[in-house]
């Protein structure tokens, strides 16, 4: 089972998802490269990465790293290795479209798992851009639009080969899209907050009742299928990713999800003048997932790089997204490059599309850096992997070559 915790809890999700160990390599492979950017520590010059059965079993400088005798060698010459990129705000795992069910304002029972289409062209394109893991989330058409799926961008095959977690995160949208102008409640932030709080309170109480029951402190609650998924958020098994923007809404998001509910959360977008909230958010260590907007024109004509402003204010838990298809899924690297252009330190930008999003979504034990024990998800490039001129020549997921430059036009 690749998704132990979440799917076990779901009575409706008794889908047996086969592991992909069968396709993993039986022999270790040593990848030699002139430079390795592990993302969580200093670059390695003249390095080797050994992949076996989908995992990294050794990594380091060639002269001090033990390579198993039976290993076959792939020499990447003067090229570089870096971790596969991670995009936590991605909408095209279903091939595009179909991500907003907008009849009701709150949809905690929905999930994008039902949309994933392994054959979609856009999945291959995403991988071509070096993005190996995505959180495929529903749109921002409603206040609570459902649960996103965590996927490996291994298209063209089975669904099982792609799924990391059926329920990767819950998607909430607070303003700048979900407003309901059709006459029902929720036209303003007042209405949206009231609706969300009503639903989230129910979820919190439901989760608490189950926890109490399981601890032997209460009666067995009545099963409510509509709240089963929401329960995972309050059991802190699944984070909430909140579409929010502007200084007022960014602070409201932190207030609601960090203070009122204290759940695992990721503040996504943070656009417009959201960076004005950077200092209080830095104090609360709010996980921030920035993009697709990268700058705001200030009142006095300065082009403020949003990432730089958050970074300078002390927000270190900072990742970058594409909001694909808003920015093309394969251009996550460009988003990071543009953040560097506007003043984000290079290391922070590389981390913002690798180890930081992995940690924010709770997968840093598996992906996000080139570290022993993690999945062998990595790219081979001619140089700086953030440079738009430098395409990934090869993309590996769990040690398996899934893309070579030119495969996708």
């Amino acid at each position, binding site marked *: 089972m690749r998704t132990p915790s979440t799917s076990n809890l779901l009575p409706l999700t008794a889908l047996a998802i086969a592991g992909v160990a069968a396709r993993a390599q039986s022999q270790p492979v040593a990848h030699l490269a002139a430079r390795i950017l592990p993302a969580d520590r200093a670059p390695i010059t003249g390095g080797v990465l050994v992949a076996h059965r989908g995992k990294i079993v050794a990594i380091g400088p060639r002269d001090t790293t033990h390579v198993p005798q039976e290993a076959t060698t792939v020499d990447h010459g003067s090229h570089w290795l870096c971790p596969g990129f991670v995009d936590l705000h991605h909408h*095209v795992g279903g*091939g*595009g*479209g179909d991500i907003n069910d907008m009849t009701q304002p709150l949809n905690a029972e929905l999930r994008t798992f039902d949309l994933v289409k392994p054959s*979609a*062209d*856009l999945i291959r*394109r995403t991988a071509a851009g070096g993005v190996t893991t995505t959180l495929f989330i529903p749109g921002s058409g409603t206040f609570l639009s459902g649960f996103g799926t965590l996927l490996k961008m291994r298209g063209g095959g089975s669904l099982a080969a792609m799924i990391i977690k059926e329920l990767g995160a819950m998607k909430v949208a607070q303003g700048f899209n979900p407003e309901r102008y059709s006459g029902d409640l929720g036209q303003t932030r007042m209405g949206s907050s009231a609706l969300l709080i009503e639903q989230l309170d129910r979820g919190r109480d439901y989760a608490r009742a189950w926890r109490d029951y399981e601890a032997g402190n209460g009666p067995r609650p009545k099963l409510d299928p509509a709240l089963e998924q929401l329960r995972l958020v309050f059991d802190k098994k699944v984070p909430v990713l909140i579409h929010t923007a502007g200084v007022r809404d960014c602070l409201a998001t932190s207030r609601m999800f960090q203070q009122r509910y204290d759940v695992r959360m990721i503040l996504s977008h943070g*656009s*417009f003048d959201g960076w004005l909230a950077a200092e209080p958010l830095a104090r609360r260590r709010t996980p921030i997932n920035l993009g*697709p*907007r*990268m*700058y*705001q*024109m*200030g009142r*006095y*004509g*300065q*082009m403020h*790089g*949003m990432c*730089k402003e958050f970074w300078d204010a002390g927000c270190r838990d900072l990742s970058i997204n594409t909001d694909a*298809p*808003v*920015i*093309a899924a394969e*251009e996550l690297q*460009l*988003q990071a*490059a*543009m953040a*560097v*252009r*506007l*003043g984000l330190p290079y290391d922070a930008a590389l981390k913002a599309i690798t180890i930081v999003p992995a940690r924010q979504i709770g997968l840093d034990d598996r992906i996000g850096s080139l570290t022993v024990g993690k999945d062998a998800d990595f790219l081979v490039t001619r140089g700086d992997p*953030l*440079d*738009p*001129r*430098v*395409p990934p020549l090869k993309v590996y997921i769990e040690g398996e070559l899934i893309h070579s430059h*030119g495969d996708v*036009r």
Partner: protein
Amino acid sequence: MRTSTLFVLSLALLSAIDLPGQGRGRRGRRSQPQPPAAKAPAAPAQEPAKKEPKHYTAIVGGDVYIGTGQRLTGATVLIADDKIERVGHNVELPQGTKVLDAKGRCVSPGFVIVKGSGMGAGFSGPYKDTVNPFDPSIKQGLAAGITSFLAGSTTSRGRIGGNNAVIKLHYGDVEGMVLVENSVVGLSMPLDRASKEKLEKQIEQCREYLAALADYPAKKAKDPKAKEPKQPRGAEKVLAVLQGKAKLWISTGGAGFSPFARMMGVSGGGSDLAAIRDALDVARMFGRGVVLDGPTSAWLVPDEIAATGSGVILSPRTRVPRDPKDPDRTGSNLASAAILAKAGVPVAVTCPAGMFGGSGVGTNGILGQDLNTPHVDAAYAVRGGLDNRKALRTITLDAAVAMGVGDRIGSLEPGKDADVLILTGDPLHYSTFVTTAVVNGKVVYEKGKEALFRHIER
């Protein structure tokens, strides 16, 4: 002013650049009598007619990208008034030369953008009357490295049309903002049969007219009563293309996807090959190369395009999905620019036609998708396999050639307009900034003096 205009005209006459016409608008041609060709001097420094001493500016010590594909390390660009005077090593600086230090910097021609809007341009001609030299977005354009762009329309259904101008980002001065009007005319595919027949007829009439015009002086000498041939009515634009005074851009429809459909990955269709071939038919009708505007499938037929002497405008980042029924011959290709350049087709790069892209220096926050970073679009041509220095041509010289002004702008060659950038590094590197922009010999942007990027260290 007048002497310099005369000089420009005469220089153009002398120049060996392959573009015969400069696409001066009708207006300009009427009011300007032809200058006597004999008056043209070889080097600007020796022009005797000039009384005012020249103002010299030199950009010294930078790594100079000429724009033709060449690079000179630690060279000098000497500017006399509004023109490039010399580029090279050991350039002697005349007394009183204003020196701009570019040591450790790169120097490049100003970027030339084939499709733009805003940045001081009006919405329709006559552009001279509608430009705003104090539009703040001009500074934003200059910060992006843009010194010239084509504003206005270049598409026209059924007949050759369009209304546009090459605008220079000559901040603060109306004079020098409009390089030329209608140096580009446009035609959109598909062309229905009636329209095509009409166009063929017009071309024939114009050819007859041009032949009669060429014979006219001899006729007149024999018979003083001989009447001057009459220009065919309503065929000015056709005539301009035939005479090489305007570049014909043919929009192929880009495989018929709306930007929204393209963004959402709609499949099916995915080919505009038929439109490309129709456009090349039109090129053959004129006997001249055209410019294919935004073709998706050009990468499939680079040699057919090269054979007509045509060029291409594209965005390497505009993605068109393949048709599952014919996947190998449909859809876009990241390598398009490289494939076309290899076949000898000049390529001008524009920003992506995505849902959130735009032809202006946007302020809506999505960097890398609009005209705020034209060098990034050229960088994507490199991603697709184009050589780094050749890729700079896609936003300099080859873009200028596509706009019919390759003899005026787009490279740092003597006699051309002094539109020069000093950059913090490789022009196509994502974190390179413009530190100084010079247009028509005048410093119009300095990073350290403008609010836009002053706060970003580089």
